């Protein structure tokens, strides 16, 4: 049981990931490992590259260096195609109703298997809206929702399409205390069901099986390196080890 369980685990591994944005290096040599049933919280001050790291894993920004693999995933699909990305933008169409918005993403997104080769059961649209406490808005155009309600509708997308990797960028922003509790409960459920979570936040999140990654600003030396200094000096810099 344990052995076969271990074989069926997913593991997201990033090695030496670097990323440039706007000609400036924002991530340098990031290593991380998250397995099924674990959460990784990426911490650090504003502008340190937390969002960039998530966007690199989601395949939205090209990495300058390093490898990102999902061990135990479906071989023909990329890491991004196993993932839900929950970013700052809600991806909602204000002219469509809440239900239309959610139904679209449910039918459009391709579900991905968890490590055990099965696609998990997912909630129906109404169940998801009910869980998040916005079922009463289902026939309203999404444009009439408040910021917090839009956020919750955006979370509902993660519930109606089963995908093992959740990439969450400041997941609790714009949510009130009660909705935050609901969201943390849902993330915990996802972790217990064998999913894995990478969350970027500057606020403490109370999640089970949590690991932490503290990002520190890319040092000025490495910026010099980027401008053409010696490569060895640059790679000797200790990274991501303070915090």
């Amino acid at each position, binding site marked *: 049981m344990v052995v076969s369980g271990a074989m069926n685990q997913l593991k997201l591994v990033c090695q030496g990931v670097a990323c440039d944005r706007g000609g400036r290096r924002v991530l340098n040599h990031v290593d991380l490992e998250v397995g099924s049933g674990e959460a990784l919280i990426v911490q650090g001050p504003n502008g340190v590259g937390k969002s960039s790291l998530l966007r690199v894993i*989601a395949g*939205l920004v090209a990495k300058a260096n390093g490898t990102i693999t999902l061990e135990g995933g479906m071989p023909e699909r990329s890491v991004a195609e196993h993932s839900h990305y929950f970013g700052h933008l809600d991806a909602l169409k204000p002219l469509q109703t809440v239900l239309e918005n959610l139904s679209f993403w449910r039918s459009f997104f391709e579900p991905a298997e968890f490590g055990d080769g099965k696609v998990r059961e997912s909630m129906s649209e109404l169940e998801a809206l009910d869980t998040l406490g916005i079922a009463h808005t289902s026939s309203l155009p999404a444009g009439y929702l408040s910021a917090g309600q839009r956020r919750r509708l955006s979370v509902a997308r993660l519930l109606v399409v089963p995908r093992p990797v959740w990439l969450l960028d400041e997941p609790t922003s714009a949510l009130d205390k009660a909705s935050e509790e609901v969201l943390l409960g849902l993330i915990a459920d996802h972790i217990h069901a064998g999913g894995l979570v990478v969350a970027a936040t500057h606020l403490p999140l109370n999640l089970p099986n949590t690991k932490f990654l503290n990002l520190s600003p890319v040092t000025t030396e490495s910026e010099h390196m980027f401008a053409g200094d010696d490569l060895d000096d640059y790679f000797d810099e200790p990274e991501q080890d303070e915090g």
Partner: protein
Amino acid sequence: MSWMKSLFVREYQLANRVGGGALIGVLFFLAVVTIFPFGVGPDMILLSRIGAAILWIGALLATLLGLDRLFQADREDGSLELLVMSGRSLELVVLIKCAAHWAATGLPLVLATPVLSLFVGLDFQSIVLVTLTLLVGAPALTLVGAVGAGVTVSMRRGGVLLSILVIPLAIPILIFGVSAATAGAIDSNNFLVPFLFLCALTLFGLVVGPLAAAAALRVSGE
């Protein structure tokens, strides 16, 4: 397959719900076609000779009108990121978006063409030919425009640049479309060759447009 249908339905609905939908394009088409007789003067013979060209240029401009929002709206609200990482073929996504956009805004232009043809004094045979060439050729304008929309997706005021990029690429479509319509009206034997070239351009756009636009969208997340 069901994801394609739901994407098409959603895009079609959105195109119709945003800012007047089909009506805006048709009204713009009407405005462009109407100013020509004022500029050229009340010379019916001249107008009917250049009528097909006027209608084609009007349709080209009306097509460009809404194209800048084809991907930009999705980029601004974050949908584009999700479309890219959904696991669906981005080329097919682009093709379906173009199809829905054309059904919502291009097809009404074609349907309005017979009525607007009367403004420039076309006879019955010319009306049929212009409408037919637009029906076949206008999708090519949308597909070429989609490439421009993909390239300019991250620009705040990309609409003007889009037109500058797309209009040169639309020249072959315009040439074969107008020559099929005008040559066909004089002698129906001259219709088939330019018309088949027009068909070929649309089929070419059908392949190259989605590929190029999808490539542009993939790097737009930077």
